[in-house]
């Protein structure tokens, strides 16, 4: 069947309220969706960041990628394993994926959207070079985050380009002039950021913190990793 016709049938079917099952082609949504996965797609009245959308892109490409944000009526999507950002309008969206091989698709991990967008940002800054982007710290951090695989070579450092405003020993505000956001840190956050004034790996950071706190690296690892995920996502910490 001609692609155009197939797409029209897909849109008509979904807009009538009936779900459709599609087979995934390609690896741009790994590990969330894999090649040959069967996804059930439904139309919705509204789509929200985090949703995995099926949409028609340029050159009549039918894509299934995650919605990162909506701006000025445009929907900005990106594959979890891709670097490009695609923007479409509402009429180009057929529906959203709700089941993967019959199982409900879970909500994305907490910082996935911010980290995914940071990868795209790096990609654009690298002149759309995927090779250069793959070497970048933020891409490697993102891959570790999404694949849940440790990368012992990643170096973390406090982002000195932000404004650090310390009220006292127990309260720190970090202001990002670019986004206008303010992030607040208590004593523990202040200690971790102090340890990140000099670039270090996660293991080195854990060792530094264990000198301050009476703990073992394994005991604090999960909390420190969560702290790093959050602070890399909001750019208080940079990774290389």
């Amino acid at each position, binding site marked *: 069947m001609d692609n155009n016709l197939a797409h029209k049938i897909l849109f008509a079917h979904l807009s009538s309220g009936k779900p459709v099952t599609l087979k995934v082609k390609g690896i741009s949504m790994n590990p969330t969706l894999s090649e040959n996965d069967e996804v059930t797609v439904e139309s919705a009245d509204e789509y929200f960041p985090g949703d995995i959308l099926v949409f028609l892109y340029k050159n009549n490409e039918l894509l299934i990628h995650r919605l990162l944000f909506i701006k000025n009526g445009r929907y900005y999507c990106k594959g979890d394993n891709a670097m490009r950002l695609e923007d479409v309008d509402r009429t180009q969206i057929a529906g959203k994926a709700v089941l993967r091989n019959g199982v409900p698709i879970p909500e994305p991990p907490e910082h996935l959207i911010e980290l995914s967008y940071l990868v795209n940002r790096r990609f654009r800054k690298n002149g759309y070079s995927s090779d250069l982007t793959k070497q970048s710290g933020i891409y490697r951090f993102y891959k570790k985050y999404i694949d849940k695989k440790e990368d012992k070579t990643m170096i973390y450092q406090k982002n000195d380009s932000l404004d650090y405003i310390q009220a006292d020993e127990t309260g720190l505000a970090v202001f990002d002039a670019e986004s206008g956001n*303010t992030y607040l840190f208590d004593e523990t956050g202040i200690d971790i950021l102090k340890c990140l004034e000099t670039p270090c790996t996660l293991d080195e950071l854990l060792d530094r913190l264990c000198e301050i706190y009476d703990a073992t690296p394994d005991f604090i690892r999960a909390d420190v990793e969560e702290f790093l995920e959050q602070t890399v996502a909001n750019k208080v910490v940079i990774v290389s």
Partner: protein
Amino acid sequence: MKNLYFHAPYQTCFRINCDCDEINANLYLHFGKYISENKFPAEYEISITQNGEQYVMESGGTVRETSNPLLEIDRFIFEKTKYDNSVFAIHGAAVEYNGKAYLFSAATTGGKTTLATYLTNRGMGYITDDCILLDRENFCIYPYNTPIHLRPGGVEALKKCGISLRLKEYGSGIYQRFTYNPENCVTQKIPLGKIFFISRNENENKVEKMTTVEKFTELMKSPITLYDTNAEYIRFISRLAVQQCFILKYSDLDFVKEVIRNG
């Protein structure tokens, strides 16, 4: 048509011209000494014309019909008011005790007006019941003694505490208010004592310490107007966050009085 000027410290001035004597009288009840016929350079003009039971209000380039011009004037003034850069305008009430200012920050209907009325009737000085003007450099509080506007619920709560006030009523329905002009108004700026983030409840009286991060968060929510967030603003908030700030939960107005008296 009478020209009145709303001219309050450290904020935008408005000219209000209205052909209705009742509305003009209510403006004096509502804004107190900050409404006068004295001319000031006004940034905005509001014009009210009576049209039968309705009023035509012209302000900010738009014309609308309203049955409640006082409410619409209040809304327009609230939307358009800009505060001087030297002050930080907090949505809250404030009283004076022993030469220091005690601030109560809460959202609308949080009980701060009733609290301010109670405390001023128990001997504390009246600073303001809705908009606190805090000097950004030295944290002194400037007096802003608008008439206190009590809702019917506040009046009842005060009666239960044995406080009976000379009130003037205006508005109707959900917009009904009772104004009260305290006699013991603070007229000079005074240093900051403590800031309380208040919440009224049925059965708990408690003062809680706050972490610096908690103070920061509450202070960021406390302004009466939208401030541009930039590094300078965050620095100011962080300086304010090391002042004495507490969470104050109360069911008993007397408890608050004792908290202030006991330092």
